[in-house]
């Protein structure tokens, strides 16, 4: 079985690299990180991830705009997206049952266990 692919989009390189380290360490995932929104859109088409973690506040095109572009493109429109953002607190994220525009939300800082739990739930 091929490894599940995860695309992480966040302008904070330190964060995406740290996440990659953690996720790859499980040997369960193939991870690609992008720190720039247009590149992230190209990566979504080429890499064909099973799930995309998307930051909201990013320079240039923010997470909401990236999501819009992903949804316009037939190649990427069905990829599950999870918002991973610092603008929502943990309690708010937990209480946002319907997510933001229907997409699940994780609050930064997030523990690795919570993150993997979310991946498993989304991919189930």
């Amino acid at each position, binding site marked *: 079985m091929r490894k599940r692919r995860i695309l992480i989009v966040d302008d*904070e390189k*330190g*964060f995406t690299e*740290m*996440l990659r*380290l*953690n996720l790859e*360490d499980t040997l369960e995932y193939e991870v690609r990180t992008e720190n720039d929104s247009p590149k992230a859109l190209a990566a979504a088409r080429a890499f064909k991830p099973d799930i995309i973690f998307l930051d909201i*506040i990013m320079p240039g095109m923010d997470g909401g705009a990236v999501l819009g572009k992903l949804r316009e493109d037939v190649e990427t429109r069905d990829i599950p997206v999870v918002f991973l953002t*610092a*603008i929502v*607190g*943990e*309690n708010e994220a937990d209480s946002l049952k319907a997510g933001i525009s229907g997409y699940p939300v994780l609050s*930064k*800082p*997030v*523990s*690795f*266990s919570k993150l993997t739990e979310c991946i498993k739930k989304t991919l189930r």
Partner: protein
Amino acid sequence: MAEEHFEKKLRVLHEISNELSLTPSVHDLCCRAVELGRSRLGFDRMSTWFVDKDPKYIVGSFGVDEKGRIREETEERVAIGGDPVMKQISAEKAHSILCPDVPLRDNSGKAVGQGSHIIAAIWNGKEIVGYLSTDNLLKHVPLTEHDRDFVELFASTFGHLYSLKRTEEELRAAYDRLKEVQDQLVQAAKMEVVGGLASGVAHEVKNPLAIILQGIDYLAKKVKAKDENSHAALMRMRIAVKKANAIIKGLLDFSFTTKLDFTSQDLNEVIEAALLLVSYEIGKYHIEVVKEFKKDIPEVKIDKNKAEQVFINIFLNAINHMPKGGQLTIRTYTTVTDKKMVCADIEDTGPGIPANILDKVFDPFFTTRRGLGGTGLGLTITKSIIEMHKGKITVENKKDGHGVKVSLMFKE
């Protein structure tokens, strides 16, 4: 002889006007004027009246009753038109009038004797602010034109002092109001800055925290299971990240307090809900909860969640200051200030707040529990929520010296 007597009285008048000028308030001035009028100037029965907001009426101040006792008569209010002598003075036909032989009356208008009576304008240099009335009901010594002159002089001296004191009081009240508004403005400006900074700082700090937390999680997997020290170190780091995050959460709560969802709520129920959420702490620290709730309390328009947060913050503060157990008393009641208010008092039996920090308890990041989990934002947020409700919060040490009383007021 009469002249000598008048001169002596003038000296006394000078002395007592000095004394009266030192009285702290209009109320005290009026009371003292009657006391000194009787004891030093030898007035018989006397009373002072002031022109009401409606100039057709006068209201009482202090006077001497039919038995010679000084009493407060501020509840009295009568029409000037009812007294022909007063009416004549009010028309500025005379500054004072002596009636040598007339029926003398009590406040209700009932005749209580016969004798002489003087009414003098309490004159402040510009206008008549009231009337001084004196007669000879008690001592029966007939009043003369000399007495009338002197009463007129006394009333005028008193009138000047009265206006001075009144202006002073009005000025002081205006200053206090101004100071209060200025404090509110300064506070609001401070809060706005903090609120504005909050979301920016929160976002900037959360990202590095997220990296640190992922790093800790990564290292935790790499450290050998039996390396207890390294695991302990990682655990401490994890706790530190959590704490930093809690501070940020506080800041964010603070900047989010603008969004309130007002609904009609029973304050007693809100308090019960908040108590439930701190029941663990109540049990842990052996806190006895005393509820003195007013039944059928009027509903208040509040944001239920935020109001709960307010009570939780106050309860936790109280509990944190009673680590060896104590009593948490919650009282609800209604009161009327300028509007009907629904209130709650929360009292603890902790050590109280040192006087030098009492005015700092609402300042952001001010805490006495730094290193013990205090972020210094609890009461800041609490106050800002209360202010969003146009309510009021005060924190004071209890009168008995044992513990703190927090009072909350919500508009009905």
